[in-house]
Each structure stands twice: as structure tokens, then as C-alpha cells.
């Protein structure tokens, strides 16, 4: 047996013993998602056990080095772990912008001190992070941001407003882009971290069309941010920002994959319109739409697998996450459109038990942001056209 086979066998046994049965059920509502943080209130004892057990092995971030709270696994072992988790439909033990966005940026640009300070807490889900990028007048044109950081000696004094800060009201810390120089647009930005409990920070929720408001406006009024909290050099924050955006796009593109295993779209359609005597969906147009969608979704799954393989081998084009994000998010929107169509009037119920399983109108509405957040589809297409196809500038 090769080392990898042994690892697979051991992992399978460990998961079987340690993944609580409740954590092998699909996530049904937002409350079911584990975000950790200072004020973490587990939705069930199983959720907490699952997080703690995985974190103890470093398996919330299996491929990070052990000294930063990771599992120290190789790329191949990480893939095996994910496969084995998928095989038992194990839930993600921890959802975290720290893992998917800040972590990779810290690993690349952080000092040893910064890594030791922040990464283990991210791995254990002790600190919840939010992202302070967008501003009212700097969305797609992110580098046009205005929030200012003035030199105060060993610290900066930050003033300004961020918008669309997901979960800012629940987050403990923020990674934030600020302007440290007006001399150059992209060359005057710095990347800083600060505690959301710092004096001068306040948030205000934004209600979305889905009825949820996990998004906030974040106001910064003379906030003191130690210079030791700056990642990478002063005025070099744009490099960090772009690197992190690549990871953000990669994460968002995963939405195109849908859930593993059972297919709520097909189950929902069968439940509402039924099968005819040939065992086919009784609504032939809906059946066709779903079947064609499934072709695209499964082909996209192959592209995701290919992308990860290429990334690990260091052969992915740097603009590839833009392509993944573009295709993945448009697909996820299509999936939810179809889920609504399949669900019929059941899918319209706003607050019912039923609306929390399968097609829910809130989830449908939420997906409309997939092609906006993290850079709009139009912006991704610009990137693909210019960086991959090398089409000329206007």
C-alpha cells in the first residue's frame, strides 16, 4: 500500500469515528453554517464537536503548515481528505473569510510575527474576519478608494467609509484597504488589519432584496491602527489586495458546483411536477432545461477540478480565477432560477418550513449578488479579454 493509500484508509476511519451524523446532513439554513469567532454560539453540540475535532488536527486548513495551526498535508493528501469528506457528505467544519481570503495573503505577505499571531486563530475559528474593500465610490474601480490612513508615528489614523462589508456586525477583525498616499492611484494603497472593537469603528446593516442583512456600511472615525498591523510595505497594499481577490474569486466560483451528492434541483422538480409513465419529468420543457443545465454544471465541475490540479502544479494562468468566477457564478444563478421554476408556488413561500429546504426564495435572491460581489461578471470578462486573450485596450 502506498503512503497515500494508507493516509486514505486512516482518514476514512478517523472521519467515520469523528464526524457526527448531524454534520453529514446538508446545510439547511444560514444558522446551520459555522463561522466561529469570539461570540461563536454553536447551533448544536455536534457543530462545536466537529469544529473542535477538525481544528485539533489542523484539518480546517489541511494544507497550511503545522506551526500556523494547519494540518501540514501535501496537495495530494488534501485532495484525499476532501474526497473522503465528500464521500460521507461531511459539512465544512468552518466557514471563514480568514481561511479563504486573508489566510493565503498572510501566508504570502505576512511577517513571521503576523503569521504566528493571526493564522492559528483563524485555523481554530476563534476570530471572525470581514473584508473592507469596497467604498461608496469605489466598487468595480476598487483602486479609486478614498478611506485615508494618516501617519501618526507608530500608528495610522484611519478615517472613511466602507460599504458592503459582509458580516461586519458579526466580525471581530477586518482586513481593510486604506489610502496612505494620494500620489498614485494603485501605488498609494496599504493593507491593514484592525479589531472591530477599536474606538471609532461602527457599522450599520444594509437590508438586501432577500430580506437578509448580513452586509454593512462600516464607518471609521479616527481609528488608531498600529503600523505593526500593516501587511507588506506601505503603499504596496494593492499587490496584497489583488492576490487576495484571486482567492476570493476562487472561493465564490465554488458556488457553481452546487452541493455534492443528492440533487435538490431534480428532487424538487420530481416532487412538484412528478414523473410520467416513462419515468420522465412530466413537464418536458422544465426537464430539458434541467438536463441542459446539468450538462453545464457537470462540465464546470470538471473545469474546477482541472483548475485545482493546474494550480497545484503551478501551471494555472494568473487570470484563471476570473474565468472560474464568471462561469461558476452565472451557473449558480441559473441553478436557482431553475429551482424556483421547479418549486412552483412552494418555492415562493417566504418564511415557511418548506422554504428552508430546497428551493427558497431568499437563497434565489441572494445568488443574484454572486455575479456582483468579488468583482462583477463584466469586470471578470474584461480581465479574461485583456490578460488571457490579450485583446488590445480601448
Amino acid at each position, binding site marked *: 500500500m502506498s503512503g497515500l493509500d494508507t493516509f486514505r484508509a486512516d482518514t476514512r476511519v478517523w472521519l467515520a469515528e469523528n464526524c457526527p451524523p448531524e454534520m453529514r446532513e446538508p446545510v439547511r439554513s444560514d444558522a446551520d453554517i459555522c463561522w466561529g469567532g469570539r461570540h461563536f454560539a454553536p447551533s448544536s453540540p455536534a457543530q462545536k464537536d466537529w469544529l473542535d475535532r477538525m481544528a485539533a488536527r489542523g484539518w480546517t486548513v489541511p494544507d497550511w503548515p503545522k506551526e500556523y495551526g494547519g494540518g501540514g498535508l501535501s496537495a495530494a493528501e488534501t485532495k484525499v481528505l476532501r474526497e473522503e469528506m465528500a464521500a460521507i457528505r461531511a459539512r465544512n467544519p468552518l466557514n471563514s473569510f480568514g481561511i479563504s481570503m486573508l489566510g493565503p495573503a498572510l501566508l504570502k505577505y505576512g511577517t513571521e510575527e503576523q503569521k504566528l499571531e493571526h493564522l492559528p486563530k483563524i485555523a481554530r475559528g476563534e476570530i471572525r474576519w470581514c473584508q473592507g474593500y469596497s467604498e461608496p465610490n469605489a466598487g468595480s474601480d476598487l483602486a479609486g478608494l478614498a478611506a485615508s490612513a494618516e501617519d501618526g508615528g507608530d500608528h495610522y489614523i484611519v478615517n472613511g467609509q466602507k460599504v458592503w462589508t459582509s458580516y461586519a456586525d458579526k466580525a471581530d477583525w477586518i482586513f481593510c484597504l486604506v489610502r496612505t498616499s494620494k500620489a498614485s492611484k494603485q501605488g498609494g494603497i496599504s493593507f491593514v488589519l484592525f479589531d472591530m472593537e477599536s474606538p471609532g469603528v461602527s457599522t450599520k446593516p444594509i437590508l438586501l432584496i432577500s430580506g437578509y442583512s448580513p452586509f454593512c456600511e462600516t464607518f471609521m472615525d479616527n481609528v488608531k491602527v498600529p503600523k505593526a498591523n500593516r501587511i507588506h510595505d506601505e503603499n504596496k497594499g494593492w499587490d496584497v489586495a489583488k492576490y487576495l481577490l484571486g482567492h476570493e474569486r476562487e472561493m465564490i466560483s465554488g458556488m457553481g458546483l452546487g452541493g455534492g451528492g443528492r440533487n435538490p434541483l431534480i428532487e424538487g422538480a420530481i416532487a412538484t411536477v412528478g414523473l410520467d409513465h416513462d419515468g420522465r419529468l412530466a413537464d418536458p420543457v422544465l426537464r430539458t432545461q434541467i438536463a441542459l443545465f446539468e450538462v453545464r454544471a457537470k462540465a464546470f465541475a470538471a473545469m474546477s477540478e482541472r483548475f485545482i490540479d493546474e494550480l497545484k502544479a503551478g501551471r494555472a494562468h494568473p487570470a484563471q480565477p476570473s474565468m472560474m468566477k464568471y462561469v461558476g457564478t452565472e451557473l449558480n444563478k441559473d441553478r436557482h432560477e431553475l429551482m424556483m421554476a421547479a418549486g412552483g408556488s412552494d418555492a415562493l413561500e417566504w418564511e415557511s418550513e418548506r422554504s428552508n429546504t430546497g428551493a427558497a426564495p431568499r437563497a434565489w435572491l441572494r445568488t443574484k449578488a454572486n455575479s456582483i460581489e468579488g468583482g462583477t461578471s463584466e469586470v471578470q470578462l474584461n480581465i479574461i479579454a485583456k490578460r488571457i486573450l490579450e*485583446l488590445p485596450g480601448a
Partner: protein
Amino acid sequence: MPLYLNEEQTMLRDTAKDFVAEHAPVSHLRALRDANDATGFSRDLWKQFAEMGLNGILIPEAQGGLGLGHVEAGVVLEEIGRNLSPSPFLTTAVAAVEALKGSAQADRWFPGIVAGETVAALAIDEGAKHRDAVALKAERSGNGFRLTGAKRFVTHGHVADLLIVAARTAGSPDDAEGVTLFAVPRDAAGLTASPERLADSSLAARMAFEGVEVDADAVIGEVDAGRDPLGRLLRAGRTGAAAELLGIGGGAMDMTVGYLKERKQFGVAIGSFQALQHRAAHLYSEMEVARAAVLKAQQLLDTGADAEMVDGAVSIAKAITGMATTLSVQEGIQMHGGIGMTDEYDIGFYMKRARVLAEMFGDVGFHADRLAKAAGY
């Protein structure tokens, strides 16, 4: 297995790329078309393919081939697609070889295929749309069989040396059981071919079987168990057609992107217009999705994965390349503007070939339907 080409496969791709582009570029197709060539492809080129060893790409080394897999065959097919090279490679070296593999008939036909002397055609379709149904009758007669019925859309059927024929030895057309696969020499008495030139200027025949007598040893595999070799043929053929489609879509896209950089209007390259950039970027993304799906199907075929999984991946590959390549050729013509509509410019050839291959071995709808049935809806 990582989902990209390994070093040897990349080398093979580069070789195939140079070889096909040099010996059978689009101008080769154009010349055959202009000459109203009655064969539809070049026998000399088929010989050259053999000299490169390519015809035996899927044939085991013990039988004189290269003993490689579907990824490698696909690499060659993609270049054939990119150059729109008329070639019996897909029907002969891929589909027929897979059907014959491991059967007694392999020893008879493989040497000629490896040598570039034998061309095989597939007599599997009976309607204008590809279906699983088989009606052509094969009745026991003497110590062999008598074939009666008709097949259509038989590419190279009028010049092939060997026909792989799906026939019914029991039951009725839609039954899964009772199908037998035969290797029928083209010169068998009672077999006639009426070739028709298709939109892409290839030739496909309607074949009539009027009591064609074949020996018992013409059976590939077992009597009534022809779905096995036919299944191998179809999996290989569909995956191969998907790879060729990928080449067609990619070739059309490369032409289009090249044109966007070169054509000037309003004093600038048209490729600087965002409306066109976005469409090009969308097209590129769709082609990349299709590429991954094709490679996935090829790899699963090669590793001999679970049959249900392979079948699913094959249908996804054929369906997605049908969609992506159709988009590519349509956008190709549109973004070329008026010149795209001229016969003199090559982009139209891509549109025609894409339509033919999209239909072959089942179109997008056929494969989407198959996936839906397999998923129970």
C-alpha cells in the same frame, strides 16, 4: 490523474499539431472540395498517418499498435478538428478499433488499419437522428447470417473496406438485448452504398443490405450480446467526436480572436471594443469548460472507471462540446462581419463541420436526455 496533459501527451500533441497543420490544413479540405473529390479524403494522407504510427494509437503493442489511450487519441483528433482535416481517423482508428479490440476479428483487420490500407465505416444509424434502436435484421443462414435492412449517415461508407454493422438477431428495435455486431467486408454481395455529399463536403452513404451473407465468424464478440462491443464503439466514438469538436471550436475561436486584433474600424482594432471583448471572453470560458469535460471523459475511459460514471462523463463531453463549439462558430462568423459569410474565408468551413459532428453519435439533446434518464427524471 491530474486533469491536464502529462509530458508525453504534450509532446504527442505538439507532434500531431505540426503534422496535421503541415499535411492537412484547411486548404487541403478546400482543395478536395473544389475538386469534387469522390473519395472525400486523401488516401495518401491516411498512409502518412500510418507512417507516423497514429493509426494504431489505440491498438495494443502486441498487435502492432502504440497501445496508447483515449487521451492520446483525443490529442490527435483535436488537431484534426482544428484543421478540419478530412480523415477516417475517428471512424477507423478510434471507433472501429475499440469495437474490434479483443475479438477474433481484430487479427484480421488491425494489420491493415495500422498500415494505413484499411478504412472502416460505422453502420449504426438508421434514422435521421442518432438513437439506440437497431432494426436491421440478421437471420441465421447456413453457417452464417443474412443481413437485411438499411443504415444511413455512414461516413466513408462508399469507400470503406470494412463496415461495423449493428444488427438485430432477436427482439424488436428498441430492445436492449438481441443486438449483434458484425464486421462486414465492404465488397460483400448485396451491399450497396449511395453516397451523399454533406454540408461540410464530406461524404456519407445510405447503405442498403439486401440479404447480405456473412460467415459466423463475422460476429464481433457474442451473438445477441452486441451491446458490449457497440457500447465500446460508442463511448470511444462519442468521446473522440467531442475531442474533434473541441478542435473545431478552438480553431474557430483562435481565428476569431486573431481577427479581433487585426481588423481596424473607427481607427482602432475592433478587439478593443468591450462588446466584442466580453463575447470573446465568454466564448473562451465556455471552450475551457468543454475542454475540461472532454479530458475528464478521456481519462475515465482510460482508467476503466465504473461504467455508469464513464457513460455519464462521455455524454457530458459530447453535449458540452456540441454547445460550446456551436457558440464558437456562430460567434466566429458574426465577429468576422461580412467577410465571415464569404466562401473564400475559412470560418464558414468551421461552421459546417461543427454542425455535422454535433449530429454524429448523438446531439446535445440526445446526450442531455441520456443523463436525465440515468439520473431518474
